[in-house]
Structures are given as structure tokens and as C-alpha cells.
């Protein structure tokens, strides 16, 4: 069964998120989308396919205090999946203040959601004019930029090329693996928005982080990315134990973790995804010849001890 891609649109109020949603619904009439928004009033279009979400955040009763999910979305996606004919995609808009982590966690935790949909990507739209200011004064914006797969810088026509480069490098220092795209009034290929399998367990994007970028912005929360690579396969037992310990001890600080690992004797590669301390992993990615295998882990989080992570990773190599 084809899993229906879900795109999560997050971003501060006042950014161009609504413009993007409007474009999805008005320009792609031949495709079927069901849209989840937070308030009906926010988008001024006919709302046949628009569902109002209630932002009910639930703690899972599994001794993990940071493990919240969005009960309203589990309910909504569950009901949507009963309808036949299927959907081409489900964009979910969250308010600027909503934490994207519980939304993403639905796709790791709930078997019904996991069985029928896949998290295509988490995307934020940020205003190029004000992004630096927002990153400095808003904890939510900082978390969002750290958390997402795609960052759309809108209103780039209002800033100079130099300024834009500086802003991009500032974003890079927080999230080294996200795709940054510049847009004007959110004019982007909608296919690339809705079909991107950025969060798919089968296809972790092979993005080379832009380490060359200068890092002249230190933020209070010190959210940053660490990107690790190995040339050789990992020892079968060591990474699991180390990862588990890492997520138990540091889960609160780790916003997003993605990785592709390989182990001796396993044809398939091991793909891991984590949102805070909730970790899901599978031998899913088809193996390529051993010498070309990708082995990498990326961490985005707060107070990350890069040296420690590198040493731990090195210790896992067989």
C-alpha cells in the first residue's frame, strides 16, 4: 500500500505559510489534498478539504516525560485513512507556537498513522528580512529552524545578496542538513514541497552539510548540528548500546537525529530516526556495494558535545 505523504508546515505567524497553503489548494485542483489547519479563519479559501485541528498534545504513558504526541492528528489521520480513493497528500499547518516535535512523533509512535501515512517533510517558512532577529528573540523560531528538513526563506527580494548569504550561514550554523530554498511569495514547485521524502525511513537525504560556512553567530540556546561519518562498518553491538544510552541521557537536548548505519553481515542498511529520546530504527535501506555504503549520523540539538559524539562514534567502528 502506498503511504500518503504528510507535509508539516510550521512557522511563525505572519510568515508566508498561509500563502503557500493557498497555493497548494488553488493551483493543484487536479490532485486531492486534505488539509489540516489550526483555525478556519486563517485561510481564506473554500474549506471543503480543510479540517480544523485542536492541537491536543498528549503525553504517552510510557515513563518518557518528553514524549508527547498530537492526539487530534492521530484521530484525524485515522479517520481520513478509512476513506477510499486515497489522497495525494496531507499538508498539516501548525501555528507558529506549536512544537513540531509532537507532530513528528505521531509518525513514529502510532501504528495506524505509521501504517498508512509517511512524514514527507517538515518545512518552515521564514521571513528573510527578520530571520536573524527572530532567531535571537524567539525560542520557537530557533527550535523550528533546528527541527525542520526544509527551510523556505521568503521575501528574499527584499534583502541584498550579501545579507542573504549571511543569513543562510546563520541558519546553517543551527541546522547543517536542512535544505534552504529562497522563494518569493512562496513560488516554488509544489511537487517538490509535497513529495519530498525528507523524513522517510527509507531515504534519508544524502545532504552534504555546508561546514564551510562561517559561523559568526552564537545563540543563547546553542542549538547546532553535528554530522558524523565512518568509512568502515560499525560493530554490531556497540552502536545500539551507545545510542540507547545517549538518548536516555541526552534525549531532552537532542531535537532531531537521523542516520544511515551499516553492520558487518547485514545486506541492508540500518536507518535511524529520532525525535528527542524517541528512537525508531529499521533495516530498510537496500544495500549498495560495501565500499560505497553511506554511514552517517546527524544530530541537531542543544548543548551538544561534538568531541564526545565523535569519539563515541569512532569507538563503534568495527
Amino acid at each position, binding site marked *: 500500500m502506498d503511504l500518503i505523504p504528510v507535509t508539516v508546515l510550521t512557522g511563525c505567524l505572519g510568515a508566508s505559510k498561509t500563502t503557500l497553503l493557498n497555493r497548494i489548494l488553488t493551483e493543484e485542483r487536479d490532485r486531492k489534498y486534505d488539509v489540516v489547519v489550526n483555525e*478556519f479563519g486563517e485561510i481564506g479559501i473554500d474549506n471543503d478539504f480543510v479540517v*480544523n485541528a485542536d492541537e491536543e498534545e498528549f503525553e504517552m*504513558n*510510557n515513563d518518557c516525560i518528553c514524549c508527547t504526541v498530537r492526539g487530534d492528528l492521530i484521530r484525524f489521520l485515522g479517520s481520513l485513512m*478509512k*476513506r477510499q480513493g486515497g489522497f495525494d497528500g496531507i499538508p498539516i499547518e501548525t501555528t507558529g507556537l506549536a512544537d513540531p516535535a509532537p507532530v513528528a512523533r505521531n509518525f513514529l509512535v502510532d501504528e495506524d498513522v505509521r501504517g498508512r501515512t509517511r512524514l514527507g517533510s517538515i518545512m518552515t517558512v521564514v521571513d528573510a528580512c527578520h530571520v536573524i532577529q527572530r532567531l535571537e528573540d524567539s525560542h520557537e523560531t530557533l527550535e523550528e529552524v533546528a527541527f525542520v528538513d526544509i527551510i523556505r526563506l521568503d521575501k528574499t527580494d527584499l534583502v541584498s545578496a550579501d545579507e542573504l548569504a549571511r543569513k543562510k550561514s546563520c541558519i546553517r550554523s543551527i541546522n547543517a542538513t536542512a535544505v534552504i530554498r529562497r522563494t518569493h511569495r512562496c513560488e516554488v514547485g509544489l511537487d517538490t514541497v509535497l513529495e519530498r521524502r525528507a523524513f522517510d525511513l527509507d531515504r534519508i537525504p544524502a545532504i552534504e552539510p555546508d561546514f564551510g560556512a562561517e559561523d559568526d553567530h552564537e545563540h543563547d540556546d546553542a542549538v547546532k548540528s553535528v554530522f558524523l561519518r565512518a568509512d568502515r562498518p560499525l560493530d554490531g553491538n556497540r552502536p545500539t548500546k551507545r545510542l540507547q544510552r545517549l538518548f536516555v541521557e541526552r534525549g531532552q537536548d537532542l531535537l532531531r537525529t537521523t542516520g544511515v548505519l551499516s553492520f558487518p553481515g547485514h545486506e541492508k542498511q540500518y536507518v535511524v530516526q529520532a525525535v528527542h529520546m524517541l528512537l525508531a530504527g529499521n533495516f530498510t535501506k537496500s544495500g549498495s556495494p560495501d565500499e560505497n555504503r553511506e554511514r552517517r549520523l546527524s544530530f541537531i540539538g542543544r548543548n551538544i558535545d561534538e568531541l564526545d559524539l565523535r569519539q563515541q562514534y569512532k569507538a563503534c567502528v568495527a
Partner: protein
Amino acid sequence: MSLFAEKGKKSLLDLIGSGRNLDAYVVGVVFLEEGLLAAALVDGRVAFINSESTSPASFVSAHDGTCLSLAGDPGGQRVLTGGDDGRLVSTDTDGETTEIAAISGRWVEPIAVSRASGLCAAAFGKTVSLFARDGSAVGRFEHANTVSGLAFDPKGRRIAAAHYGGASLWWAKLGTQEPKRLTWAGSHLDLTWSPDGKYIVTAMQENELHGWRVADSVDMRMAGYPKKVKSMSWLPKGRYLATGGADSVICWPFHGKSGPMGKAPLDLGWGFEGVVTAVAAHPRHDVIAAGYKDGTTILVQIEREDPLLVKRPGEGAVTALGWSADGQHLALGTESGLVGRLKLSDWRTSSGA
């Protein structure tokens, strides 16, 4: 394991029943008077199917949108449905629909009815509304979270609502009141009240059940399910609670003083593929109809080995099962829209079938 699990073996539905595909996920099935079967379909239609296998189903459009739930009216002459159009609708056997209540923008999901008091309860998001048989509103109870399960006590005097953090118990005919709160961390998705009134059991997001003894709120945790429990049904007199959520029918014993605590559940209907998605206990005998994710449907008896095959695999997961009040008719519905019905009048639990 079972004699009937073999490929090519004819099922009861093949032999003495009839089935038809109605082209939409079956939300629920319920028998009305004179063996008339009503099925609610996810596309907003209600279908009526009589016991003649050749006569076509008749359809009524009850909701503009998705139909989320179905319940038979206590009087047996109409059905109640809830939808994502925010409406609670009554459809009678002549095909006449009446909107009982509507709250725009809300979903109407759980509905509960009481034969004893004639009351009906429906949740409009966080609000539970009570209605008398004539459709007049007789009560309204607010909750902090969305209510996803509802059940009356056996006398129909109290209504219990499941929500995030536990359940709330309200007196149906009392005005201003504080509900009795049964608390347990986590999200409670469905709720059932035992026929003897002593226990309330909820199905949780965390693949487990939680129970309370109503008298003293003592907690009972029933865990170990590989999947979410989406169906629960009490056997006659509440001796056992049959549940889905595992690859066999799990039946918790409730006939002792302390309910299922410290006891192992019975484990019936082994040897079929996949998880049990729907269960319905016979109204008079210790017999359970159980449907699986692959569409297989069986009848099992408490403490007996061999199940009877009601329906072979196919047509998607079983989503709905229901008995007529006299236990002579059984109906089932599936994900891909099959509605099947059969008459078991000659069948006896003692016949060794």
C-alpha cells in the same frame, strides 16, 4: 490448528449467509426490529439490508462528509450516526433522516444508547450531550479534552466518558454536578461499562486496557497487547470481556470478586493470520464472533478448541460485527465495504458445531 482454517473450506457466510459490497469502509452494523440490518458507511451513507439475500440494499445519505459512528436507537426502529460534519443524525427504517443536534466544526464520534432509560449520548468534541428518545436535549457535560469513548451504566442513569487522563462519570438527570473522576495517565480511546455495572474499562493509546472498579475506583491494568485494542465486548452477565488487539481473542475474566486481577486471560481463536480487529459477544451464550485484519471471521466458544469459520479471508480487515438482540442473526462489515449477514437460528452452543 482449526479444522476450518484450511484453504478452500466453505464458510458459514458461503453456506447459509449473504454478502454484498457497498463500496465504502463499514463503520458499524446494527440489527433493528424484524431482522432488518443497518450499516453505516464512511462516505456518509446508511444502508438497510433485509434478510432476503436477493433483495437489494437501500441507501440513505445521512452525512455530508465522513460518518464516524453508528448506534441502534433503543426502540429498534431507527439508527443514530455521528459525522465529521458535526451532526448527530437519526435515520428511520423508511429512510427519513432527522438532525438531532449539530455543532459546526466539531466531530461527532462516540455515541452510546441505553435500552433501559431510552437515553442517547453523543460526544461533540469535548462536549457530551444527552438526548431523550424524542430527540430533546436533556443534559450537557463539558470536558477538558476530546471525548473518544462513551457508555451508559446498565440502568442508563449514568454516563461515562473516556478522554485524555482517564474517564468522567456523570448522572444523566442531575443538573449542575461535579463528575466522578477516574484517573490514569495517558490517552483513553474507548470505554465500556460492564453489564453488572461494577467495572469500567478503557482501551488506551498504549496498547493496553485500563479498568476501574466503580465502587472504590481501584485501578486494574490489562497490558501485553501487541496492537491497539479497537474492539471490546462483554459476554453474557459480564463474566468475560472479549477484546481484539492481539492475534487471538483475549478474554479477561470478570466473574471473581477482584475482576481480572491476578488472573490470566483466556486466549481463543488461535491459528489465524494477523490481529483481531473486531469482536462481538453473543447476547445469550458464551460465544464470540471475532474478525481479523485479513478479513477472516470466526465464532469461538469459551473453553473450547475449534472455532467455526464464518468468513474466509479477503475484502480487508473486519471493522464491524453485530448480533441481533435475540442472537439469531450475525452481521459483519469490512474495510473494503463488504457487509455480510447470516441467520443462526438452528445453531446451538450445545450442538458441538
